[in-house]
């Protein structure tokens, strides 16, 4: 394999990765900068991280974001999973094509439009904007992502598992919780994680639907950056990157290990 690594290949990979990661690397490096000026290096320090904890505004925003992300991801997972089940199972109901299109439309809908239409709705029904409205908006746009993830798992789901459960005496609801859900759980969990991340870094929709007292972290960062980038922002962004990276790497490692174990078991079983 090494033999086929031409100079061109190496160059394109280096360039590609630089394009993707250089900005992030710079951000991480400058978060450890001693200087107050973002672009001038003045030695290593972690003072901005400790200062971060003192910044009540940022901490509040982070707390709001975490709560919004947790609640919206959880509700979106329930709704998205139900939608996915309805779409894969009841293949013959009237208007299924329309319904499928409508569930998946928000995937390609410009966020500005989603945000604006939600804003208009909240204003029209006199819903006071704040924590509730951001959460609702996030549920709306992330549930279709969950539906996509769960649906793709359900398409390969062996229906005879459910039939077997019912045949053995489990009514439909019990069958769902004892057989269907445990089997599709990995897809549901990754749907939840996807919804959580989407909510975590959403700026556009949150800006439209949020109100006083419910500023999310991306909104806070964006408004602060407009007044000039501070090293504190770099620090909190580095933490965010760290959280997301650890999450992603852990999830894929667990998955990988499970798969390898499974493969090994199957081979062992075949040998007898």
């Amino acid at each position, binding site marked *: 394999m090494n033999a086929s690594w031409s100079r061109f290949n190496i160059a394109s990979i280096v360039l590609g990765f630089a394009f993707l990661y250089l900005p992030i690397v710079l951000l991480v490096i400058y978060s450890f900068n001693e200087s107050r000026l973002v672009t001038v290096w003045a030695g290593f320090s972690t003072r901005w991280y400790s200062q971060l904890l003192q910044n009540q505004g940022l901490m509040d925003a982070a707390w709001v974001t975490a709560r919004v992300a947790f609640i919206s991801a959880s509700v979106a997972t329930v709704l998205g999973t139900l939608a996915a089940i309805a779409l894969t199972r009841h293949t013959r109901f009237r208007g299924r094509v329309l319904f499928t299109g409508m569930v998946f439309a928000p995937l390609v809908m410009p966020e500005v439009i989603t945000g604006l239409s939600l804003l208009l709705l909240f204003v029209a029904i006199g819903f006071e904007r704040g924590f509730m409205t951001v959460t609702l908006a996030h549920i709306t746009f992330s549930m279709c992502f969950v539906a996509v993830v769960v649906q793709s798992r359900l398409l390969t789901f*062996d229906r*005879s*598992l459910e*039939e*077997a*459960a*019912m*045949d*053995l*005496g*489990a*009514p439909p609801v*019990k069958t769902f919780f*004892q*057989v269907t859900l*445990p*089997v599709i759980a990995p897809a549901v969990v990754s749907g939840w994680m996807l919804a959580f991340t989407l909510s975590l870094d959403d700026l556009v929709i949150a800006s439209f639907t949020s109100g006083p007292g419910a500023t999310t972290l991306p909104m806070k960062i964006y408004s602060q950056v407009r007044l000039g980038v501070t090293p504190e922002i770099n620090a909190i962004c580095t933490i965010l990157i760290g959280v997301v990276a650890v999450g992603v790497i852990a999830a894929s490692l667990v998955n990988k290990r499970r798969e390898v174990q*499974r493969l090994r*078991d*199957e081979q*062992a*079983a*075949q040998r*007898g």
Partner: protein
Amino acid sequence: MNSLGSIRRSFAPWADPAAKPYISFDGVTKRFGDFTAVNDLSLTIFEREFFALLGASGCGKSTLLRMLAGFEEPSAGRILLDGQDLAGIPPYRRPVNMMFQSYALFPHMTVEQNIAFGLKQDGMPKAQIAERVASMLKLVKLEQFARRKPHQLSGGQRQRVALARSVAKRPKVLLLDEPLGALDKKLREETQFELMDLQQQLGLTFVVVTHDQEEAMTMADRIAIMDKGEVRQVATPAEVYEAPNSRFVADFVGSVNLFEGTVSGNGGNILTIAASDGFEINVENAGAAADGANVWFAIRPEKVRVSSRAPEGSGANVTEGEIWDIAYLGDMTIYHVRLPSGRVVKASQVNAARVIEDALTWHDKAWISFAPDSGVVLTA
């Protein structure tokens, strides 16, 4: 085992007009849109019977099984189990259990948990569940695999877990959908006998769906041959093979030679047929058929004799041809003999001796002959 054997031999409730059927399909029809999977079908199955539904794929046999399990409702007709109409009873309240073709083992549960699943649904006390699971594991010889997950088992082991799970609840009827379909040939043959022993031990009624005629012949007390949503014949394996009621059944089960002809004589218990291949066929005890009626004579290859010299005796049931093909299978040899009419007749001969003198070879002249009681006359 001796007593079981004698029970089995005398087991024939279908021949007893006073016997009460255990399962009865009564004019059952199932339509999927425009497609009729099962068409006005009536069938009775008796308690403790090992009953096979045999047919090619798409003949409606699986639909019949799924209606019994409750996964499909009949479009018309009734299904009775032990006198109870099953209409409207969901699968989870029916006293039948099914073993699925794909086994449908719950991948997130161990072997033990899989077997205990049905018992838990019934609210059986824990100690009793553990006891039953242990006895089931022993029954299918999987004691040391209790804690394994399905993906850690081989195909044969999975099949046994599926079996244990489906009989754990002691259902009134066990439904088996192509139970041995996923196993390799050798394992399949062993498992056939295991299934038969199991059925005897537990005294359950088995309804098995299969497309493998050998499997059906080996295991079943009676076989229903299905085609296009209808039952063509219901009979014991021997009857289906030796006395098929139509060309379809004769051709579907095993290999057969069919001669078309017209009835030319009807003397005593001998029916004479003028075969279109230019020779006369005498059949003993063939039943009545009008002179001049168009009939078919069906005879199995192992009942056709091939010889290099003309057999002695009357001129009927003998004709001359040419050896067209020979297949040596070790235990037997199959000859294809081409008649002057162009028809190729299959004849198989058991190789009882190691060396056959006067062996026939390709393009030899040969006579085929058969006894008057070796074939059947079919009118359909």
